[in-house]
């Protein structure tokens, strides 16, 4: 085993995912402390242009093959497992994402290495790698030492800054072998219905959660958003009820947003949601439960019924903006 830190790169629609830069930055820091190298692994078809963004790595392993054009868990996993066995890194960092979540289980078994999920913090302390994972809907955190073998760690997006991962450099490039014929095949990509607002580009967001109670209260939130000149987004429960379209979902398997204002109304702050909005510049949360995790993250909080606050706030803002 080496002291290297491996990062499994992710990309979607031809663009490198933010999480990959976050992981690269962290990998640099850890590799420095562990006295190892950073290796980025990139799988896909025609991904050569993305390699330029992975300059922070010392080594870049690329598998480029038509079968890898779209993410097919089995195929990706076979290639990566092969590489892990070959390289024997100290740590393999993945995103706790649509991609990483499908990989760590099979990888853990196939490469016979331990794996950890929901990680939000990684540090080297006295030569040990100490990690923290968030569990139970963000209500409990667990701290543990990552065993001193090769280990897989899936990191919650937004846990580390992306900036250090953007460092320029000229990594050595390695070509990985083509994948075996898979039992899983890609059929098609279904894009979100067009024409809806892209909430990741709206600077002022009114976000609603379970506390909005029912569909009848959605127009209240829309009115508030309109008054502010922003848009409405939501956490998963609201989307699952069909009260707002999928395009408005913030968090895991939704959109990641970084608005100037994130007004979290009736949102408890489950980690799946938080990872999509925690980088907002100003977070103001209103929730009836004083113990809701959202208050741990928000800049300002108020314990109150969101449904009650929304119309009052609309009124106030209308008055203030004349």
């Amino acid at each position, binding site marked *: 085993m080496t002291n290297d830190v491996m990062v499994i790169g992710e990309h*979607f*629609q031809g663009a490198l995912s933010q999480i990959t830069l976050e992981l690269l930055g962290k990998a640099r820091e850890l590799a420095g402390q562990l006295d190892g190298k950073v290796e980025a692994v990139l799988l896909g078809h025609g991904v050569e242009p993305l390699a330029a963004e992975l300059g922070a790595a010392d080594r870049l392993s690329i598998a480029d093959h038509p079968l890898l054009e*779209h993410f097919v*868990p*089995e195929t990706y996993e076979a290639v990566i497992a092969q590489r892990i066995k070959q390289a024997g890194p100290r740590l393999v960092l993945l995103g706790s994402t*649509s991609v990483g*979540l*499908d*990989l760590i*289980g*099979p990888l*853990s*078994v*196939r490469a016979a290495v*331990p*794996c*950890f*999920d929901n990680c939000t913090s990684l540090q080297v302390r006295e030569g040990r790698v100490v990690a923290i994972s968030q*569990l*139970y809907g*963000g*209500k*409990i*955190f*667990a701290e*543990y030492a990552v065993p001193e073998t090769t280990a897989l760690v*899936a990191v919650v997006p937004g846990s580390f800054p992306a900036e250090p991962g953007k460092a320029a450099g000229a990594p050595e490039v390695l070509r990985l072998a083509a994948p075996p014929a*898979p*039992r*899983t*095949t890609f*059929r098609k*990509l*279904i894009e979100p219905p067009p024409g809806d607002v892209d909430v990741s580009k709206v600077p002022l967001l009114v976000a609603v959660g379970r506390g909005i109670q029912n569909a009848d209260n959605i127009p209240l939130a829309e009115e508030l958003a309109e008054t*502010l*000149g922003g848009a409405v987004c939501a956490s998963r429960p609201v989307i*699952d009820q069909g009260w707002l379209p999928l*395009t408005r979902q913030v968090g895991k*398997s939704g*959109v990641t947003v970084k608005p*100037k*204002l994130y007004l979290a109304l009736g949102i408890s702050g489950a980690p799946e949601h938080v990872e999509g909005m925690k980088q907002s510049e100003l977070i*103001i949360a209103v929730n009836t439960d004083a113990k809701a995790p959202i*208050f*741990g993250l*928000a*800049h*300002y*909080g*108020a314990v*109150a*019924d969101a449904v009650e*606050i929304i119309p009052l*706030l609309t*009124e*106030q*803002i209308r008055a*203030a*903006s*004349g």
Partner: protein
Amino acid sequence: MKIAVLIKQVPDLVEGLEIDASGKALDQDSLRYIISEADDHALEQALLIRERTGASVDVFALDVGEARDSLTTALAKGAERVTLVAAGLEAAPGSHALAELFAGVLRPQNFDLILTGVRAIDDLDGSLGGLLAGLLELPYVGLIRKVETGPGGETAIVQKEFPGGFITELEVKLPAVLGIQSAEQPPRYVPVSRLRQVMKTAKIGEQAVEPPQAQPIAVERLFKPEEGAGASMLEGTPEELAKQIAGLLAERHLLKG
């Protein structure tokens, strides 16, 4: 077609969680278990497939917490058979241990489709589905929102979620393991009268297994995030709160005009 659904018990967050004296585990006495939400969706998805294709649905649960109740509910919802896997454990084990137990139980049974929730709130060492697929050497796809069976029941056509509302459709050759994020419709309600009828006649199969080999993760400490650590809390009547929030926005020039 034979479908297996694996359901696991997780602590019910409604009841609040306490950390025990060791500081390394949850206080078992204050815990109340409930079926993991995504597993409930996996069961629903299996039942929907059954209604469309006439497949059989077997449900397995490890004997922890209220597993027996969850299995009874599964029967009342329409599962053919339910099995309690008894490994003599007091608390829910880690995902590796769970995968090891279920792999042992499922390996001889030749299921075409194994469904489970894509993740659970207590997943620390990965999630059951992917680990189990690894052990059984079957294909795995997670974060699934829809499952249909392909021609001849040879494959499953699944929709997998990606950020931003994107979905990819994949075709998986069976047998396979699928990690369900949400079923095509919310889990069905079981009226209590039916539940009670089923309770009287329910046949919950039991299968004793050896305790798992996989070692639990050596958690060094558990801690709760500080309550409201980040937020400065506003106080007052709803009207006053609304005024204060509007004030905050105005200070930061976030208001129009």
